[in-house]
């Protein structure tokens, strides 16, 4: 049995990753922080497709909750093979309008949360001498969009921590990579006004938004032994937006 822990797996990209990893044969821990019903739907779908897993409600920005979660998962399954650090938030604000609370919230979840989960899971993976950590970054880490200074800074931090952790943990059989999606057709994109969406599409050479399943495809590949020699990389999936 192989076990994957996906943070922020109740909706969107996290949900797609959880479903895909379950189809790949992983027992999947569906982490979420508030959306009980949506998380349950993710797990129900995993089970309806013949997979297995569990729900775990925890705020990954809180180290004490992360410690308990990882310990409980390990107690339940005895191992953690894949961590998908996905839970995150977007709060777009122009610099002069930026609120310190926004800065704290974004860095607490998008950066500290990734560190906390990686740290606690790495201790378990270290014992196994194997494991894969996949950090969800964003094309915003490489392609500047006005108003996204905070979000892009957090994702730039994710890219840097991915590279450093890859060096720190590589000798112990643990690979660390990141996936940097562009505009992905999730609820977040659907909430954007039609005109703004059209403007985004014009900037994308492939003239469409990506799908959460396409992000999950890369996560699946990175988790597999097909990518056993790949670590410390950031894979951009943006339809050419950042070119």
């Amino acid at each position, binding site marked *: 049995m192989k076990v994957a822990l996906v943070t922020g797996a109740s909706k969107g990209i996290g949900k797609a990753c959880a479903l895909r990893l379950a189809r790949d044969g992983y027992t999947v821990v569906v982490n979420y922080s508030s959306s009980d019903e949506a998380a349950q739907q993710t797990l129900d779908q995993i089970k309806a497709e013949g997979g297995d897993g569990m729900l775990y409600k925890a705020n990954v920005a809180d*180290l004490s909750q992360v*410690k308990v979660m990882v*310990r409980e998962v390990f107690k339940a399954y005895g191992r953690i093979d894949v961590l998908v650090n996905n839970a995150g938030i977007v709060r777009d604000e122009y610099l002069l309008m930026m609120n310190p609370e926004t800065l704290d919230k974004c860095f607490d979840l998008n950066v500290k949360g990734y560190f906390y989960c990686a*740290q*606690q899971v*790495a*201790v*378990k993976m*270290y*014992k196994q001498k194997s494991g894969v950590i996949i950090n969800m970054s964003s094309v915003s880490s490489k392609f500047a969009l006005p108003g996204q200074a905070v979000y892009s800074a957090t994702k730039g931090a994710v890219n840097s921590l991915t590279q450093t952790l890859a060096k720190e943990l590589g*000798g*112990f059989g643990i690979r660390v990579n990141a996936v940097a999606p562009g505009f992905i057709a999730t609820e977040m994109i659907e909430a954007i006004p039609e005109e703004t969406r059209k403007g985004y599409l014009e900037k994308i050479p492939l003239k469409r938004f990506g799908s959460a399943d396409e992000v999950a495809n890369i996560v699946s590949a990175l988790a597999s032994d097909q990518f056993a020699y790949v670590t410390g990389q950031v894979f951009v999936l943006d339809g050419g937006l950042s070119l």
Partner: protein
Amino acid sequence: MANEEVKSKLKSFFMSDLGVDGDVLQYDTALFGDEIGLDSVDSLEIISFVDSTFGVSMTGVAKENFQSIDTIAAYIEAHKA
């Protein structure tokens, strides 16, 4: 688990897993000093061993707690369930 037993298990671990000379390693010997010469990579070994053997998390713990077998054992005693 008595403190002496914790120390004894730690010493065995340092000798068998990290290759530390048992004749040199006393309970109060500085682990990261010149004498033993462990480095930061070894700290991951120690954290993993303590986690799996005693069920105590030492991630993010201040360096002073890793100074010697005595200090690690004291931390374990203070934090085990």
